[in-house]
């Protein structure tokens, strides 16, 4: 092949990648070994147990999940010594059934587990309907599995087996499962030997198969079955080899990117079509797509169910499912084929009469051939089965129109005929034809395809019989009348057809629009919500409305250990449903009703999938009778995707916020640490140096050293007080004790406390002598005023005058204390920041943590007041503290 010639030694990157991915997936999951046979009785279980005994000899941690010995001594002897996980008892309709205890095996988590009879159907009420689904879960849990399987249980071979033996096999496993098989061991035996074993009673057949056993074990049948099994195993080996080759650059067989597309409808023949396509795809090593074209008309429930089954089958057999909407099936198929790069389209052979096809402008195959371009078209004949194939394409789906529409057609035509009868003598019969045409066009806007078809024929007949000469006969005399009649007939039918097609398209558009609207509303609702809770609430209400269901949403609790129901759900999640949701969440697959996992559940559980995990589960609980259409399934998935995005966005935002907060607090800690260490170490250094010098100092030096020590001690004291105050403020432990205060007292006490720092600053106080008493916490206010003065002293050069004023603004019912200076002032941009902690003015002299103003604000706010920074007219800063003012009560007369 071309690619092989141009690049003979290079491995195909895609194949390599796919192979790597498969290897990776295999590394993470358990290994599956299948003991494969042509029919029951060949000794698969025996072979499996022998292999297990061998493993046990090598000290492999293995358990028996389920093994059927059918009471045979040889097999039972082999089972002895193997650890068995007790089976689970399931009560069903008064009988006790036993099944493998999947939960117990998962909990036990051995290296290897033996699971007999892969195709077995589990008792109702089990976690999965089929045993092979249990096995998949075991593999996912990184447990190796040994299992047994007969060729007749393979989905794609079931038809062949039925044709050979006449026995319909009900228990099948999907072929896609074989993709998980790591090793397949053929357990072979000659038909003669088998018949011998059969006659010795060593073969067990279950249920209905037992009745057909005679037929099943005919020599000819056995040979055919054996061939089938051998061929299947050979095919598997071949596939594996091919895979190996393409991945290891020994590529001599290179398959082009073939892709098959099969059209799937509700008819039983579609089932065969699906199987046929799967075989074809497997033999070509191609991928395949199953496409369902939803017509404008809703299918009845049976058809809907059959369609679901056919699509489920295709999904099981490994197809990708595409559901599309179009009134023209051929158009839709070609469109999907082009979108998905399909190279071959597979359709069933039409069973309908040719004349109907001709009317439509050719049947499906003809139309596909015409518009399909380079795509190959395969037409597979449908097997004639007893039941009539259910309609699924185009014309045959003539919607039963209500009798009302037929009545309308005949009523209109009768009235028009009567009127025309009177008018005809004046207008002539050709004009009557136009009246009829007008009526048919008018009717086509109101009634369905059937009635309009009838209207076309009936009007033509009436016109011919009653008006075209010779009247009261169906004979048309003149050539031009015949031409006119023919044209009329054609125009009437075409018009009717066109009109109904437009109506169908309209309906289609409307449906599409409904879906788009649903998603639009959802997106909008989510987008406009301000919190996650709001968004979830809005989304769930939308879901309630669109699915006609009660809904619930379970969300990850944040650390990925459990999911919790969101309060906005309209569906109360029972314990059992919680378990289903949990399964869907952990396995990242849909579960519950309408699925293969726990189908007996009440709700349809859709996981909210993100890149690497499910962030929650959406549960739709539809009314008991309701069916979930494919469109709804699609929509549910879209809803889940939207919700998942929403949740992820929210989580990212929260994470970002946390990070920001962390960075902020980190910065704060650094500032605090830097500041505190500097602030503590400076006075400490002064203290230790001064003390060392004290011993050797003379009288005069001793005095100045003592002074230094005092200053350093005061500074330390101030620092510690500030830190304590800030802590008190932040811990919320600050509870002001309001009492009547005298402004003069407060100012005196505050000034005394900071007299050292005020040294060197001309200081002026202006307080009215009759300043009334006001309510405040005296100790806090004393500190506020001291801090205000200190702030001015620290942030202005020595010699800068400081003013303190106080007063009452009775109009605004407040007392104020103002400290002003003639220093560098406060830039407007700084004023708001000023009162945050650890803010130090640019002109600050060394010293201070920048807590002073933050404490002022905290203390003042706690007393119901406020602090404002401003500009001193003529230069400098002004800080003013306001406190609420109320005159005190009377003092009793003496």
């Amino acid at each position, binding site marked *: 092949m071309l690619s092989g010639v141009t690049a003979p030694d290079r491995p195909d990157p895609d194949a390599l990648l796919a192979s790597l991915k498969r290897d990776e997936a295999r590394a993470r999951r358990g290994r599956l070994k299948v003991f494969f046979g042509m029919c029951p009785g060949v000794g698969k279980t025996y072979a499996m147990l022998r292999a297990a005994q061998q493993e046990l000899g090598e000290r492999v941690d293995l358990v028996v999940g389920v093994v059927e010995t059918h009471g045979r001594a040889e097999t039972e002897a082999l089972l002895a010594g193997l650890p068995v996980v007790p089976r689970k008892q399931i009560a069903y309709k008064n009988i006790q059934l036993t099944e493998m205890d999947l939960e117990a095996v998962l909990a036990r988590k051995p290296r290897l587990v033996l699971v007999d009879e892969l195709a077995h159907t589990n008792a109702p009420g089990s976690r999965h309907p089929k045993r092979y689904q249990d096995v998949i879960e075991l593999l996912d849990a990184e447990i190796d599995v040994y299992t047994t399987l007969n060729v007749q249980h393979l989905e794609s071979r079931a038809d062949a087996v039925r044709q050979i033996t006449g026995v319909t096999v009900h228990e099948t496993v999907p072929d896609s499962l074989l993709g998980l098989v790591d090793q397949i061991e053929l357990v072979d035996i000659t038909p003669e030997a088998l018949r011998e074993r059969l006659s010795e009673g060593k073969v067990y057949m279950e249920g209905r198969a037992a009745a057909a056993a005679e037929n099943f074990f005919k020599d000819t049948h056995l040979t055919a079955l054996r061939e089938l099994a051998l061929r299947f195993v050979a095919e598997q080996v071949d596939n594996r080899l091919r895979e190996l080759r393409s991945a290891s650059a020994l590529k001599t067989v290179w398959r082009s990117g073939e892709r098959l597309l099969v059209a799937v409808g509700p008819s039983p023949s579609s089932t065969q079509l699906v199987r046929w396509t799967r075989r074809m795809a497997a033999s070509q090593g191609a991928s395949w797509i199953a496409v369902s074209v939803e017509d404008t008309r809703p299918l009845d429930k049976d058809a809907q169910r059959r369609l679901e089954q056919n699509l489920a089958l295709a999904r099981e057999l490994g197809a990708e499912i595409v559901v599309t909407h179009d009134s023209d099936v051929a158009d839709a198929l070609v469109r999907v084929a082009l979108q998905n790069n399909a190279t071959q389209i597979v359709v069933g052979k039409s069973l309908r009469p040719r004349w109907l096809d001709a009317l439509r402008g050719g049947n499906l195959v003809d139309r596909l051939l015409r518009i399909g371009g380079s795509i190959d078209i395969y037409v597979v004949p449908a097997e004639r089965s007893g039941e009539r194939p259910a309609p699924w394409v185009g014309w045959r789906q003539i919607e039963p129109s209500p009798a009302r529409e037929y009545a309308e057609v005949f009523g209109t035509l009768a009235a028009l005929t009567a009127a025309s009868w009177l008018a005809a003598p004046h207008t002539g019969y050709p004009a009557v034809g136009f009246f009829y045409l007008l009526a048919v066009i008018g009717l086509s806007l109101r009634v369905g395809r059937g009635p309009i078809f009838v209207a076309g024929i009936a009007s033509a007949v009436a016109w011919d019989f009653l008006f075209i000469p010779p009247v009261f006969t169906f004979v048309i005399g003149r050539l031009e009348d015949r031409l006119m009649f023919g044209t009329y007939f054609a125009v009437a039918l075409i018009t009717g057809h066109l009109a109904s097609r437009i109506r169908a398209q309209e309906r289609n558009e409307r449906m599409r629009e409904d879906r788009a609207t649903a998603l639009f509303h959802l997106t909008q609702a989510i987008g406009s919500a301000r919190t996650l809770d709001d968004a979830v609430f809005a989304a769930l209400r939308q879901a309630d409305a669109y699915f006609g269901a009660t809904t619930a949403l379970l969300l990850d609790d944040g650390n990925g250990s459990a999911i919790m129901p969101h309060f906005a759900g309209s569906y109360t999640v029972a314990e059992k449903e919680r378990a289903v949701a949990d399964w869907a969440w952990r396995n990242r697959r849909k579960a519950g009703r309408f699925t293969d996992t726990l189908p007996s559940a009440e709700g349809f559980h859709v996981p909210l999938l993100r890149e690497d995990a499910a962030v929650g589960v959406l549960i739709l609980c539809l009314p008991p009778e309701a069916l979930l259409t494919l469109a709804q399934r699609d929509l549910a998935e879209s809803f889940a995707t939207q919700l998942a995005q929403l949740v992820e966005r929210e989580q990212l935002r929260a994470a970002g916020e946390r990070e920001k907060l962390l960075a902020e607090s980190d910065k704060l800690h650094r500032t605090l640490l830097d500041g505190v260490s500097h602030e503590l170490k400076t006075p400490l250094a002064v203290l230790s140096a001064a003390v060392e010098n004290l011993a050797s100092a003379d009288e005069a030096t001793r005095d100045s050293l003592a002074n230094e020590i005092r200053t350093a001690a005061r500074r330390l004291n101030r620092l510690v007080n500030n830190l304590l105050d800030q802590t008190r403020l932040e811990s919320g432990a600050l509870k002001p004790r309001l009492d009547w205060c005298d402004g003069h007292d407060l100012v005196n006490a505050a000034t005394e406390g900071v007299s050292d720092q005020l040294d060197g600053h001309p200081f002026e106080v202006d307080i009215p002598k009759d300043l009334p008493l006001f309510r405040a916490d005296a100790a806090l206010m004393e500190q506020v005023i001291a801090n205000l003065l200190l702030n001015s002293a620290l942030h202005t050069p020595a010699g800068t005058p400081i003013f303190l004023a106080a007063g009452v603004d009775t109009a605004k019912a407040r007392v104020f204390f103002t400290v002003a200076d003639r220093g560098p002032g406060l830039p407007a941009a700084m004023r708001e920041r000023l009162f945050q902690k650890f803010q130090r003015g640019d002109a600050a002299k060394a010293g201070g943590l920048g807590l002073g103003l933050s404490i002022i604000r905290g203390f003042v706010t706690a007393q119901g007041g406020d602090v404002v920074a401003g500009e001193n007219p003529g230069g400098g800063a002004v800080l003013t503290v306001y406190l609420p003012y109320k005159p005190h009560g009377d*003092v009793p007369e003496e």
Partner: protein
Amino acid sequence: MTANPAIQTVLVIDDEVQIRRLLRITLESAGYCVAEADTGRFGLDEAARRQPDAIVLDLGLPDMGGLEVLRHLREWSRVPVLVLTVIAGETEKVAALDAGADDYLTKPFGAAELTARLRAILRRAPGENEPSVVVFGDIEMDLAARLVRRRGAEVRLTAKEYAMLRLLVMHRGKVVTHGQMLRELWGPKSEGNTHYLRVHMTHMRQKLEADPHRPSHLKTESGIGYRLVGT
């Protein structure tokens, strides 16, 4: 040491060794005899055994709170107590004063402050005669004659003002809490009406102080009460 009746004994109850050492140096150089205890329980034992003339009590003790020590002590002793506190809040100080402490000092404090306070609380030791005339600044208060003179001239005080001043004079050098003053002058129901005190104090300062807005004798203890100094 206790043999000499002129030397007074002070018991220091504090868990910090350094503070105890510092207090010992300060107090001994001021002429007191010092006993030490490092826990509240041991302090109570020592108080019972040594019968000190005054106690300096730290409020933050490891075994039992200073307030509790004070309450136990007040069950059987009237010995003057000076409490030391690191807490700037006045609530605890008031609580200590209410529990029977005679005065308080906030850490860090100066040596002069400590000895002044100690002298004040020791003044009313039993047996000492109360003088009938007390002088502070240019004010002379004759308790026997119920007269107040300023530079020789009589100052007319109202009955409440006189009662307030008398209370402060009786406890001169020590803090008198708002609650104490209100209880004694207006009865127990008046606690909380501190504006009575403020108003009367303002009037009194105008009559007695040279600069009423910067008083040198009738001092305010923010959030706690008043103190008469300079006697």
